[in-house]
């Protein structure tokens, strides 16, 4: 399509039904109460000139261009700040307002460079548009007066320039930074004519608190804040609406191109997850897609010590098929398997598991969700009956108390964090349960009511204590429990035991009992309490227990089944939800249906014309064990760098080395490819057509911005391997794959590309009962009927700090980098995070003689690495923290084989370590 310009109604919509009748230039329009005259006019099809107004920001009333006349009222009110009143009659074009608007424009242009023709915003400049709209013909003040034309540009940000000489002081950037992003990195400095936009305390953008989300660039009506790519490449000419491939928020973007070249990614206002907002990764860090490191030709080698040899697709695919079959012939049908990736589309993931089940003839398929959110799938399925979060993101705007457990949304899920922070600024209370003092605990204009700074590994003890308070202090929602749940009495008897009281667990968790009690009362007493959690919940030996513990707590307090409540996983990767939905787990067929279920198996057997094993397949860690044992010898790894991201890397590399055939499909020769025999070039998300499903079950369309650089779609490659192995798989378009998914998956019954293109996105379940999807689940009853209370005993991890390893290491993510960094490290985002850093408390540093910036040795019982230390009082004593974005650090060299008891999700968050100065 040509360049997509979403309409801008000037001021945000107001909730409520359209009940106020007004007339704009004689055109009748009916709008909600509180709607601005400007928005009413836009809805009536009348554009009122404006510069400081945009419907993403609250009305501000500063440019005075939108003045109108209203019958029966004095003067010329600004239409952006004037709400409609019943029967109001507005005139938007009168000689009086025309003269005022020209007068305003005359003032603007008297202090603006006259370089429209050479300006980077030429053609995309609201100031230019408005000069035209108001019919500006002269600037009688001349251009010799006081002005800002000599103001110095700030080009410090790697992605955008700040050109203050072009600034019209509309404050849209400042307001966007505050209202939308919630960082407040920008301000107006000085006052009057000296007013100017300032980042931080008169700092450069890079030195300021700016997180480079791009909201200011998006908001700027002129070329003052402009993407460097636009400066270099020029204005884009067409747009493709697609979905970001970074985190689980699933932001919609307009990929804007000039010819075939991607100029910029612009957040899409209609995007259900992001509503026009973005973060530094999705907005700017797309350069990896064209990075020279990308491998575009298939490659093959006999042994991993050999040089790679570029081959044709036919040869590569033939090699994979032949050698896989050889392994099966020699070692049995179960000796091969595949790992699919949560970064790939639903369609790609679906064909991978189909290939494994139908062509490989076993269930040896697992997904990287194994190592992040498998306990979510297990725990929520057990309690609620569905392996997914309960709410849509919008729901957070109705929450009164928000509990964030083991998640760091401002870094990991920044666009959702902005929505959450907006609600917190409106007055919702916050409880943070995390060993680290994450930004949400206290950052400008946000402060948690309670920060339960627990010891890593004691989540279950904490959640049980919270539930204990709810149960023993009479805070249970008895009606909800009686009507909607089962197993309460048994659970309540268990949880009311004295050993679960805050006082009893204080010694275990390190959380003061009174804090715990206060937090429990706050959550249980809230009209709407919502729980959001991340990998700090799941990546533990009791990850599944904790998920069920949170579900118990939410049910006990009646916090399910409506807006503003729920139990909500913040998914790590873009398609964690989707890859789980698509049957990537070795025990489940698409739609979370167990392989032992004969009826379900029959459906697929019929469709695929192959028998499907009732025996669950190997999970990722089991695959490694089996490989080392010699019974598992061939692995297809789809878009995942297990040799960097999985725990206990020594064991992983031992397993990879032991295998006969490792096939890696990826953009880059990643760490895993070092052990591969066949390398199949992958496609970036910009080259893909398909769907991603985000953390709120929202199925978003991914649309190709360019053709696959390798010449083949990833789903195509998988199909060709299966076909070469003797199981024909072929589709002409990924929409056919989705049609197949919909035909066999009850929660996807109504989903099709056609529907998605029509509605923009759909949240599953989508079926005849919910033809446009289901934003909030379990409204009238739980998926499993009654919500089930599950007794959640706290079983401490075996990983204990010892004299030799006295500290606990926990890991996480930072804003600018993503996962193993394969993408973000190949963008300018390295400007913010060049290396992984070990954070430790000043006391722990002091006793070890470590000063800030020292290179330290980090050792656990399984391995060691070195990295630089940062001393930080965000850490509690006894706990150290690092990210795992850089392969050189290899943080997972030290993480252990411990895992969740129910799902084998690795215990990344608890590793006993020692830290010392590196010699």
């Amino acid at each position: 399509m040509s360049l997509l310009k979403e309409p801008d109604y000037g001021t945000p919509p107001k909730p409520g039904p359209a009940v106020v009748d007004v007339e704009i230039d004689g055109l009748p329009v009916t709008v909600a109460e509180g709607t601005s005259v400007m928005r009413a006019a836009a809805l009536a099809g009348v554009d009122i000139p404006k510069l400081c107004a945009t419907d993403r920001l609250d009305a501000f009333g500063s440019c005075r261009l939108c003045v109108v006349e209203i019958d029966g009222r004095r003067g010329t009110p600004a239409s952006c700040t004037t709400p409609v009143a019943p029967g109001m009659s507005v005139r938007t074009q009168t000689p009086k307002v025309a003269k005022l608007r020209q007068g305003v424009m005359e003032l603007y242009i008297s202090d603006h460079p006259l370089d429209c023709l050479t300006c980077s915003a030429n053609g995309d400049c609201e100031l230019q548009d408005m000069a035209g709209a108001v019919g500006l013909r002269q600037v009688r003040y001349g251009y010799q007066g006081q002005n800002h034309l000599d103001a110095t540009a700030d080009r410090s940000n790697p992605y955008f320039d700040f050109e203050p000489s072009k600034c019209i002081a509309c404050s849209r950037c400042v307001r966007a930074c505050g209202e939308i992003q919630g960082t407040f990195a920008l301000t107006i400095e000085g006052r009057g004519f000296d007013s100017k936009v300032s980042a931080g305390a008169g700092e450069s953008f890079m030195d300021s608190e700016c997180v480079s989300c791009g909201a200011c660039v998006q908001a700027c009506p002129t070329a003052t804040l402009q993407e460097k790519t636009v400066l270099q490449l020029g204005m884009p000419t067409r747009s493709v609406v697609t979905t970001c491939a970074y985190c689980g928020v699933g932001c919609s973007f307009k990929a804007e191109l000039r010819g075939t070249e991607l100029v910029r990614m612009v957040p899409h206002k209609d995007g259900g997850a992001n509503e026009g907002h973005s973060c530094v990764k999705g907005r700017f860090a797309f350069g990896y897609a064209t990075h020279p490191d990308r491998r575009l030709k298939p490659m093959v080698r006999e042994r991993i010590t050999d040089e790679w040899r570029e081959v044709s697709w036919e040869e590569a695919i033939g090699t994979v098929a032949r050698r896989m079959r050889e392994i099966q012939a020699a070692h049995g049908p179960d000796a091969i398997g595949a790992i699919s990736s949560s970064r790939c589309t639903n369609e790609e993931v679906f064909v991978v598991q189909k290939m494994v089940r139908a062509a490989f003839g076993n269930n040896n398929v697992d997904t990287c969700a194994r190592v992040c959110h498998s306990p979510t799938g297990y725990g929520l399925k057990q309690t609620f009956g569905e392996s997914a979060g309960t709410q849509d993101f919008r729901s957070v705007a109705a929450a009164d108390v928000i509990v964030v457990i083991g998640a760091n949304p401002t870094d990991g899920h920044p666009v959702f964090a902005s929505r959450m922070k907006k609600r917190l600024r409106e007055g919702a209370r916050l409880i943070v349960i995390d060993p680290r003092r994450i930004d949400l605990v206290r950052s400008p204009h946000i402060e948690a009511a309670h920060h339960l700074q627990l010891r890593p590994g004691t989540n279950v003890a904490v959640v049980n204590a919270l539930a204990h308070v709810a149960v023993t202090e009479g805070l249970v929602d008895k009606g909800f429990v009686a009507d909607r749940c089962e197993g309460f009495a048994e659970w309540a008897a268990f949880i009311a035991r004295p050993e679960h009281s805050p006082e009893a667990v204080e010694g275990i968790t390190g959380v003061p009992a009174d804090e715990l009690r206060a937090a429990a009362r706050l959550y249980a007493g809230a009209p709407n309490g919502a729980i959001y959690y991340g990998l700090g919940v799941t990546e533990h030996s009791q990850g599944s227990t904790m998920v069920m513990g949170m579900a118990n707590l939410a049910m006990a307090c009646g916090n399910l089944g409506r807006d503003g409540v729920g139990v909500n996983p913040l998914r790590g990767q873009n398609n964690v939800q989707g890859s789980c939905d698509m049957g990537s787990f070795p025990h489940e067929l698409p739609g979370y249906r167990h392989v032992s279920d004969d009826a379900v198996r029959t459906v697929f057997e019929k469709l695929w014309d192959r028998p499907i094993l009732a025996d669950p397949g190997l999970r990722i860690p089991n695959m490694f064990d089996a490989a080392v044992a010699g019974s598992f010898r061939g692995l297809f790894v789809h878009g995942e760098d297990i040799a960097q991201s999985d725990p206990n890397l020594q064991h992983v590399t031992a397993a990879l080395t032991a295998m006969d055939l490792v096939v890696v499909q990826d953009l880059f020769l990643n760490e895993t490819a070092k052990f591969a025999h066949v390398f199949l070039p992958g496609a970036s998300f910009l080259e893909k057509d398909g769907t991603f499903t985000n953390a709120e079950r929202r199925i978003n369309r991914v649309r190709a911005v360019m053709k696959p650089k390798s010449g083949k779609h990833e789903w195509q490659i998988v199909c060709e391997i299966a076909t070469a192995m003797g199981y024909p798989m072929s589709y002409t378009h990924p929409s056919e794959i989705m049609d197949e998914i919909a035909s066999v998956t009850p929660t996807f019954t109504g989903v099709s590309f056609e529907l998605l293109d029509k509605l923009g996105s759909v949240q599953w379940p989508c079926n005849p009962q919910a033809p446009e999807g289901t934003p909030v689940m379990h409204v009238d009853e739980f998926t499993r009927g009654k919500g089930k209370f599950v007794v959640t005993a706290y079983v401490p991890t075996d990983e204990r700090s010892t004299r030799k390893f006295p500290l606990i290491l926990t890991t996480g993510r930072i804003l600018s980098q993503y996962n193993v960094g394969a993408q973000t490290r190949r963008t300018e985002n390295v400007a913010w995070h060049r290396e992984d850093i070990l954070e430790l408390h000043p006391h722990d540093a002091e006793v070890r003689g470590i000063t800030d910036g020292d290179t330290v040795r980090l050792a656990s019982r399984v391995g060691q690495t070195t990295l630089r230390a940062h001393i930080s009082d965000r850490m509690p004593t006894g706990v150290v923290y690092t990210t795992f974005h850089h392969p050189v650090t290899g943080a997972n060299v030290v993480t252990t084989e411990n895992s969740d008891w129910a799902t084998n999700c690795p215990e990344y968050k608890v590793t006993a370590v020692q830290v010392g100065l590196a010699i």
Partner: protein
Amino acid sequence: MSHVISEQRMANQIAANQRHLPEADAVAAVAGHIDRFWNSFLRSRLYALVDAGAAGLDPVVVKAVERIRT
């Protein structure tokens, strides 16, 4: 690190997480979990451990294995 221990560790861990139940229930829960989520390769290696004398295995696991096998 021995891989034999892998199954032992996982099975014992499952049992540990059912310890709050009466033994009969715990055995049923462990058996059910292993049956539902474990691959036959893992199960066979667990059986082998039991057959080799069950050293280091939680008694609940041993009973659960008996139950699955029958």
